[in-house]
């Protein structure tokens, strides 16, 4: 079972072999409301942790998604172009944003595990 970690910016990161799959959490999609557009980076782009990686737009507003880890964009979720509402419907799987390769295991290890993220969410309520 690949391990999933989380950021305070409400992204999830799932290590699949040496590839990190990145998306936004169900909490994030609920906060954003109906998602109408997702702008994804070019495949091959090198991202440093904290760089703007994607933009997710609801009817009213645009929100940036930052790279949770340093790495190279290996793939983006092309399905979001035709159906951005996938992020609302399935934030944790079919609504993934991008895949990063060349990430450092140590950086991944510093992210919150699921228990820590749940505790973090409880603190926001």
């Amino acid at each position, binding site marked *: 079972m690949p391990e999933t970690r989380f950021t305070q910016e409400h992204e999830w990161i799932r290590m699949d072999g040496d590839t990190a799959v990145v998306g936004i959490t169900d909490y994030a999609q609920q906060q954003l*409301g*109906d998602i*109408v*557009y997702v*702008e994804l980076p070019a495949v091959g782009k090198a991202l440093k942790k904290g760089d703007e990686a994607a933009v997710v*737009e*609801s*009817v*009213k507003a645009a929100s940036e998604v930052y790279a949770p880890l340093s790495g190279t964009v290996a793939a983006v979720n092309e399905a979001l172009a035709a159906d951005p509402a996938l992020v609302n419907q399935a934030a944790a799987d079919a609504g993934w944003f991008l895949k990063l390769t060349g990430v450092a295991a140590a950086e991944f290890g510093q992210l919150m595990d699921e228990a820590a993220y749940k505790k973090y969410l409880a603190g926001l309520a």
Partner: protein
Amino acid sequence: MADHPPEPDSPKPDPPMPDPHELRRTPLHALHQELGAKLVPFAGYEMPVQYPAGILAEHRHCREAAGLFDVSHMGQATLTGAAAAAAFETLVPGDIAGLPVGRTRYTLFTDDEGGILDDLMVTNAGDHLFLVVNAACKADDLAHLRSRIGGRVEIRELADRSLLALQGPKAASVMARLAPQAVAMKFMSFGPAVLGGVACWLTRSGYTGEDGFEISVPADAADKVARLLLAQPEVKPIGLGARDSLRLEAGLCLYGHDIDRTTTPVEADLAWAIGKRRRAEGGFPGAAIILAQLADGAARRRVGMRLAGAAPAREQTPIVDDRGAPLGTVTSGLYGPSVGGPIAMGYVATSSAHTGATIDLVVRGQPRPATIVPLPFVPHRYHRG
């Protein structure tokens, strides 16, 4: 009560001051919470931006059936006195003296430079004028009215009234059941009605491009009337999020975004709101500038824009020509749920403001192709009778 004699040097405590950051609530606050609304600060009020259905579903429901909006944050006022229309005309470019009893008109408070202080609805209610102004402007509007015409006209702010809007193609079937005489009202007309035993003032108008009614109701009965309307099978609650997407698709300006003190009625393509007699006579703030722009044209004009791609262009997005030269700025932009794609309004140099002209909107540094299109984006469906 003298357990502790006052310390001689202790300063007298200040009386409790209202916290200026504390948000005001409308009489429907409890109802919004009951309905599961997401409440956000807006113009000093805690207002529902959406309900659990979400902005897209609320928007579509209003276009297909009927939606109920709480717009109680807006300002309501009356102007009374024999001189009311003449005095009011010194502040707005609309023909108010020629407004028949029972009719409503869209007009603008202008300033001496021809800028727009607020946009508003004015009704000739017979023995008085009834005004509905924007929430964020209401304090300034009242101060402006009092300082300019307060000596000639009795000005009363109706803080004891709430405002609801019932909008959508099925609004009339709802009224047919609750207040049948309202069905005969035409677009931009005004009249009394009793809804669930509560005496209300109806205006057949709104901010969605759809048929509908704005309902002024005593604040202490607003909850009762709102619940009665929500109990009708056609009606669902609609938040400010969908209100914004509905009004933008209808090509209607949002004060503070599409119009403000830096835009004139001519630039804003609102010259239709300047009465024929007023064009000849002037006599409103900024008339020299506004009438000169009517005659000679203005340097820029508000236009509608339809983006070719899927990326929305938000307020402040630069508008450029095909060589990248600046043409203007987006003032409102979002995904239009009924249009099925991103739409925007903004100001463009008049020389380039032609329907069909192709332009670029620079979103996050990327030029995104767009076309200037006629407004509204979605045809109005007013009940013109």
